[in-house]
């Protein structure tokens, strides 16, 4: 047991939640995915709902989310996580169900499922990681890629006349009557992480009310895809993404 740091005489103030497995994250250094995974699993642990939570992983960088989250999980086809989550929740309405998707998965190939899942007001939590790029396939343009942003499929920058505009899908989602709670958060600073944790906690608590979908966009980074250091990527995110994707609640429960 030489690797264990004894904490005799100290209080443990921070530790890996028991709801995360011991598998090391495969994510690039500085990537927001690991932080969101961790925060999500912290909330599951704190709410004591590990035995009642079922997650759905997407296709994208977080395709192996189920390697890390120590809960029952399903791996969905590209874009279909919210349909899979719908199937689970309809069979197990008493359980906590969440889907976890990136921008290409949720806002391009899965747009129909995204809109209709929320429009039905499925009582699930949808987590949407927006880093404005297809990370896993090597940095291609995403639906949320900014105008003029350079990616491997917009090498001269995204031009709206040829490639359309960045899709603010969370703003669309907030218009739907089935949406109960819609918020846009980030993980670029410690304060942002704490706010995200609060949003996730609220969302999972809301799920018991059976009043509709909770939708959390996390504006995140992709140091490898953006070809930046983690620090640079967090600065770039704050300067370039927040003007288009401002943080804060887009829809809050009226009856709270």
């Amino acid at each position, binding site marked *: 047991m030489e690797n264990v740091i004894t904490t005799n005489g100290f209080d443990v103030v921070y530790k890996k939640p028991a709801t995360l497995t011991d598998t090391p994250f495969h994510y690039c250094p500085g990537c927001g995915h690991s932080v969101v995974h961790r925060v999500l699993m912290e909330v599951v642990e704190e709410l004591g709902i*590990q035995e009642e939570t079922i997650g759905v992983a997407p296709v994208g960088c977080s*395709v192996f989310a189920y390697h890390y989250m120590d809960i029952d999980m*399903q*791996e969905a086809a590209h874009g279909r996580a919210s349909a899979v*989550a719908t*199937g689970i929740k309809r*069979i*197990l309405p008493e359980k906590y169900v969440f889907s976890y998707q990136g921008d290409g998965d949720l806002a391009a190939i899965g747009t129909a499922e995204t809109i209709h899942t929320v429009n039905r007001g499925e009582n699930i939590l949808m987590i949407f990681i927006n880093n404005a790029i297809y990370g896993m396939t090597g940095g291609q343009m995403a639906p949320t890629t900014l105008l003029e942003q350079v990616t491997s499929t917009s090498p001269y920058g995204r031009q709206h006349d040829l490639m359309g505009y960045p899709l603010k899908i969370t703003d669309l989602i907030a218009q739907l009557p089935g949406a109960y709670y819609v918020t846009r958060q980030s993980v670029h600073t410690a304060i942002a992480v704490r706010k995200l944790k609060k949003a996730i906690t609220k969302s999972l608590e809301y799920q018991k009310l059976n009043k509709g979908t909770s939708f959390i966009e996390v504006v995140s980074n992709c140091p490898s895809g953006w070809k930046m250091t983690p620090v640079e990527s967090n600065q770039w995110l704050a300067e370039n993404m927040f003007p288009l994707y401002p943080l804060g609640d887009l829809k809050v429960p009226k009856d709270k």
Partner: protein
Amino acid sequence: MEQKNNGKTEARLMKGNEALAEAAIRADIDAYFGYPITPQSEVLEYFTREMPKRHGIFLQAESELAAINMIYGAAGAGGRVMTSSSSPGISLMQEGISYIASAQLPCLIVNVNRGGPGLGTIQPSQGDYFQATKGGGHGDYHLIVLAPASVQEMADFVFDAIRLAEKYRNPAMILADGALGQMMEKVVLPEEGSLPKHGNNWATVGKPSSRERNIITSLYIQPEKMEGINFELQEKYSRIQDEVRYEEINMEDADIALVAFGLSARVCQKAVDLGREKGIKVGLIRPITLYPFPKKVISAFAEKVNFFLTVEMNAGQMVEDVTLAVNGKRPVFFKGRMGGMIPSPEDVVTELESIIEKISISQD
């Protein structure tokens, strides 16, 4: 066609689609997910009416893509679930079906086959035989495929398909057609609650501390692991061969074997009667399971009959499996109609007479 009467007297006159839906409710399905498409919308509509009354879940999805992925999620959560569609919609589902086959989830998929390709026609067809029996989507997999030939079998095969799907943790398909879906016949419905549910210890229902987490996935990045999954699937498909089912009609003394499934088999049954009236000793082999395919019985009859005539409502699909089973021992002929057309019994007899004449000329 043989009408199974399980010793019960409750005979009703029903459309094929409605008999199928009622049987599914009696088979205790937990949920139906689907999307409207002709000629199977009655299935959807029947569930919409009945499921709320009978404690089942019905959800009209935004697309066939969504529906099949809801099936994936719900089956993975341990539910007994089904969907139905018709040819173009089944094409849309293929990606999801491949995932379901790979993740080894039991479910029932019903294809009320219509004429294609493309948007095609809403008239009956068997043009989806290849798609149903050879996999349909990407990768090496098979569905268990049952082909009803009557409204009675539209109902009965729901039970059989679900039983097989759950026994093998494999998606099962009922391959019907627009005529079987729409036509009305007398049907004795299976008894409600006669299909017991078993625990699914692999399902994602929430992980108790007493076990490892359950993962429903089809992703194995390491090729060694993915090949292992493929070996597991292939071993399962070889076990599934034991479930082969077929019907022989007037084959005892037959010189000629018709081979047909589903509605074509109904046509051929009449053709057998007409042919025999004309002194042609013809019989019918009707595959009931299209996968597994009854190759042994066809191979055995290749030692007895003079030739085979496969009759299908397509350009010639099952005939390839018949030809493989016959393995060159006897000639295999094909008669088909396409694009929503149904061959008549007279067409089949005329084809038989023409083949007999050609063979006798070539023997002179």
